[in-house]
């Protein structure tokens, strides 16, 4: 077992064991939320961390999938699984169209155009009341499963989320080290050179966009199944900003960063609010503190901290913590 994936396996295993130690399904459900948010953040990280394309409209991917699966499995009369496949297919098809517009730009233009695309879908969800239910959304989304896989039970649903999360980590972990992953970072740092040595920069970015869309769709599917309802709020600008904050706070371009960032935001939002009234303020202060102490995010920051601490030891200890990628 490679030492690099060991910590991830440990974290996933610890998350999977929450149902065994927790007396209340609340913590199980909270862990599911962390997992779902982490899948989305991992998807966005492909764009933000590796392609250098900062999106303020990521929520469009989970949003589209969630609405599609909700509509197909309630009004449309499909079973949950075929509905899910159609929803993901539909999201990917729509994402291809979005790419034609969004990938014409980079930098701030990309930030805005992704926000605009998301706002348009949000507007459609909000305005097209007869299909989407308007601001009331669609409720009664059924979860799949049955006697073998009782996904209506929190622990089983958590395990499903963790399986998807593990898949995302594995696929993206491999991708980031693959020739295309290296090339993607090349297009981020020197698009001109990449083009001059024979790479099709647009197509590489397109692959990144579709990867982000795919994992976003997976997160959206789980979101719809988890909450069993969808509403336009999940595509508001603040929802997209929240995912971006997860990625940046955890450490853009790292594999563990989005996971840490997702856990931080979800737990702050939902656990801290139990004890603190002004949790929005707490969230804001947390971001400011992170940025001042660790401008590149938590994972690179802690990587640097451990490297710094290690200098004070006479002999290097066996590497329990592998060096994190800090190429974000």
């Amino acid at each position, binding site marked *: 077992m490679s030492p690099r994936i060991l910590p991830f396996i440990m974290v996933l295993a610890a998350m999977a064991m929450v149902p065994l130690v927790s007396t209340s399904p609340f913590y199980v459900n909270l862990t599911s939320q962390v997992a779902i948010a982490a899948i989305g953040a991992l998807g966005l990280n492909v764009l933000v961390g590796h392609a250098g394309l900062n999106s303020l409209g990521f929520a469009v991917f989970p949003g589209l999938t969630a609405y599609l699966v909700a509509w197909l499995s309630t009004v449309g009369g499909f079973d949950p699984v075929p509905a899910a496949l159609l929803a993901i297919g539909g999201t990917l098809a729509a994402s291809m169209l979005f790419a034609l517009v969004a990938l014409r730009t980079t930098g701030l233009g990309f930030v805005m155009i992704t926000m605009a695309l998301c706002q348009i879908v949000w507007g459609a969800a909000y305005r097209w009341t007869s299909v989407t239910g308007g601001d009331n959304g669609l409720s009664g989304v059924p979860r799949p499963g049955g006697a073998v896989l009782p996904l209506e039970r929190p622990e089983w649903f958590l395990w499903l989320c963790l399986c998807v999360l593990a898949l995302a980590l594995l696929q993206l972990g491999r991708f980031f080290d693959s020739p295309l992953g290296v090339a993607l970072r090349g297009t981020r740092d020197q698009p001109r050179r990449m083009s001059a040595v024979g790479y099709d920069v647009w197509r590489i970015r397109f692959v990144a966009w579709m990867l982000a869309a795919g994992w976003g769709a997976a997160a959206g599917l789980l979101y719809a199944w988890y909450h069993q309802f969808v509403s336009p709020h999940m595509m508001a600008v603040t929802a997209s900003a929240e995912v971006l904050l997860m990625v940046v706070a955890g450490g853009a371009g790292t594999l563990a960063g989005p996971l840490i960032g997702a856990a931080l935001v979800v737990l702050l939002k939902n656990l801290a609010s139990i004890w603190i009234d002004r949790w929005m303020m707490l969230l*804001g202060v947390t971001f400011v503190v992170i940025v001042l102490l660790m*401008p590149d995010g938590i994972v690179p920051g802690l990587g640097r901290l451990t490297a710094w601490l290690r200098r004070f030891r006479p002999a290097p200890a066996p590497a329990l913590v592998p060096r994190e990628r800090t190429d974000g």
Partner: protein
Amino acid sequence: MAFWISQSLNALALGGLLFMLASGFSLIFGLMRVANLAHGALFMLGAYLGLAVVKAGFGFWVAAASAAVAVGLFGGVLERTLLRRLAGRTLPQVLLTLGLAFIIADACLMLWGGDPMRLPPPPELSGAVRIGDAVFPRYRLFVIGASAAVALGLWLLVERTRAGAMIRAAVDDVGMARAIGVSASTLFTAVFCLGTALAGLGGVIGGPILSVYPTLDQDMLPLALLVVILGGAGSLIGAFVGAYAIGFIYTFGQVLVPDLAYVILFLPMIAVLSVAPQGLFGRRLG
């Protein structure tokens, strides 16, 4: 006819307000490459401060001036103490300014409560005037004039003064500006103060139209971003054209095609960005 007159005036008033909000954002972005996502929150802070001054018994004009100064100073402090450390690093800046926006918004909610509040226009500007067949609020005419005055003032500042020359030089090339003796540090702080002061002023000027309420920042920030993107980041003329373009598109779009009310602002923006990714007056950024 009355319809076109009054809707055009509405568009001009909204465009003027947006210009006050977006010009500061654009100046800051052009000079420092900082997308200040706390700009909407500073606009709201200005509105709340202005309201507090009015409630303390001072007039509207004192409120406008003091809110502009206070928010400007606050912006300067933020730049000196926090933003300065993150020069040139986009993602940390996003995290920081969004975090600040959260803090400011929640602090306003704590201090002033969630009740929406009215910021009355000064008595000499309340009431409506008749223009042809159309009836139009006097205060909105003032907003149209005031924003035009601010635009003119900014233009004179940037194009006709020594400070403006420095700003222009630094926008083109910070290194070069330093070489010819511009103190970039002072200039950055000054421009950040100016930009945030404009946001604070805009908050008070906009108060009588928009009223003052907790999510004012979230409602205004996307509009400011749209203006800047449409017009081109870092360009004063771009912010000017963009603000009035958005004012007209928003006003007439909602009236003429109500079914597209939610997307009316984004469709033209996508069209513009597809053709000119830097916006109408933007320069290509590194």
